[in-house]
């Protein structure tokens, strides 16, 4: 196995094994908590999926022997990837805690400045304009109340 294929194969294996773990946990939950009629179709789907996943794992294993790992992942910068995902987690947490109107400009400014690498002035301008447009469209024009966050009465 070439060195170049090893990470790709490991990624493919990790992905398939994670899905397999999810499916097994799902089936175990269904088996333990549901009556036979309710779990019949979900378990049927689970059994078929486990079979398919075993085939996929065999395929990955065979590909390892033949030096031709199945496609697994795009080249990415892990630190940047984690920063983007962390920013979305922070946005959702902020949305839930303090509401859209407060978290939106903060998220936009931080993302555009820190992840996008743009100037602070541009980040602030876009954050202000987007928040104003969203407030005008949803709260004023459509009368749809924007979530104020559970800490502020939501």
């Amino acid at each position, binding site marked *: 196995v070439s060195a170049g294929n090893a990470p790709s194969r490991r990624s493919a294996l990790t992905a398939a094994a994670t899905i397999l773990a999810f499916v097994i946990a799902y089936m175990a939950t269904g088996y333990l908590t549901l009556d036979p009629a*309710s779990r019949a179709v979900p378990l049927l789907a689970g059994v078929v999926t486990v079979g398919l996943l075993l085939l996929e794992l065999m395929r990955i294993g065979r590909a390892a022997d033949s030096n*031709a790992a199945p496609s697994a992942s795009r080249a990415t910068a892990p630190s940047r990837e984690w920063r983007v995902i962390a920013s979305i987690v922070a946005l*959702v947490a902020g*949305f*839930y805690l303090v509401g859209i109107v407060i978290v939106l400009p903060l*998220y936009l400014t931080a993302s555009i400045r820190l992840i996008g690498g*743009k100037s602070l002035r541009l980040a602030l301008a876009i954050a202000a304009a*987007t928040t104003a447009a969203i407030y005008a469209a949803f709260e004023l024009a459509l009368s749809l109340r924007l979530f104020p966050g559970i800490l502020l009465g939501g």
Partner: protein
Amino acid sequence: MLTTLVQAAGDIAAWQTLAFLMFGVVVGLVFGVIPGLGGTTALAILLPLTFGMDVIDAFAMCGGIMGAVAMGGSISAILLNAPGTAPSAATCLDGYPMAQQGRAAEAIGAVAMASPLGGLFGMITLLLVFPLARDIVLLFGPPEFFLLAVFGLVSIAVADAANLLRGLIVAGVGLMLAFVGYDPVNGGVRFALGSDYLWDGIPLVPALVGLFGMAEMIALSVHGGSVAADTGSARLSGVMTGIRSTLRHWRVVIRGSIVGTLIGAVPGVGGTVATFIAYTTARKADPHPETFGTGRIEGVIAPEASNNAKDSGALLPTLAFGIPGSAEMAVFLGILVLHGMQPGPMMFVEHQREIYGLVIALTLAAIIASVIGLTFVRSLAWITRVPGGVLAPTVIAVSLVGTFAIDSRPGDVVLAAVFGVLGYLMLRFDYPRLPLVIALVLGETAERGFHQAMIIGRGSWSVFVQSPTSVVLVALIAVSLGWSAVPMLRRSLAARRSGGIS
């Protein structure tokens, strides 16, 4: 019939009715463009407004919304890979790669031509089959619904022959996720993890916004650049090329329209399945199916023709039986009742003129929306040149706010974010996202159909091959699986014989 049709056209041509139609078109375009909102929300918000209106004016406004929302949804699907409406998700598959290649205007041109053509086809078909509506809808019972769901799922999962196994795995996982929430047999709650939010299952629109719009924006943030990979070559012209391509691929338009009208007419299946099956049909009929997903114009034309044709199809069960073919139609049903109309076979006798008016409004709306879309295509295509560092967080934020606006549930925002990360991981690990969407749409239909069919058949599986419609559907499923599996097995055997592994 012709006299009534002319009278209905005269009703719609009145200036006041046209004004309501135009208003509906603008609202439909705006609600279509914003990911998460869509025609259902627009109709629901404007429902009380129709109360004091004349029936024809109300129908013109609703027709304007329903006819235009598809165009709006496709614009954001092409430019941002964030489908404004669920059925527009299929347009992402080749529309977004076209935008990445700097051919956004060409893709929007194709949408602008294919949408009204699909709408026109749907209208003509609807007018022709109105007298047969009852017989067509009655062809589908529980066994047929189950088989149709399986067929929809299989045809999408095997669409990517190179990734067949992963497509089927994703379909299986998608089905398992579709079973979250109320059990259609016993009414108990399953797999809800103790959360009230999941009692009604995983809602489709937040999942779609996450899987397509957010996932792609996360990828854009991670990789940097802009939507159009080479902004220097991003062409803001090409609208006419898109229009000409649509006319040249008239067979794709007709195939997509037929699929849209037929699937749209099946209650509970809806437009999302119609557009994806239209896409798969176009792909399978093409001599180079492997190039779909890389920016083929046919991959935009087929779902777009289907997207507008499906509205006319969905009117059949809504008006004939009061069974809405989609969420949009369910809200429209409320508008019918609000105006004192009782859906049923007598609708076609008692309110023929109003129904024809609605169908004409739907088609006119698609044409007007296309003209408006084309007028602004150059400014819209600029979006593909905006740096990802600015565009991605803005789209993610607007998508999440739009998702919240659907039902004002914070849980929708969390779900969209979860599916956004999931969609990104699927992109990263090369797992197709389409089968997951279709499984989420069809899971409940499949399970309910299965249980009802087994009750009808008293536990015997022969219930699935008792009617001619069932037999046709079973054959279609077998052909779909065989079409992809046999060449794969043949390649695998050939590779094993030559000492390698496929």
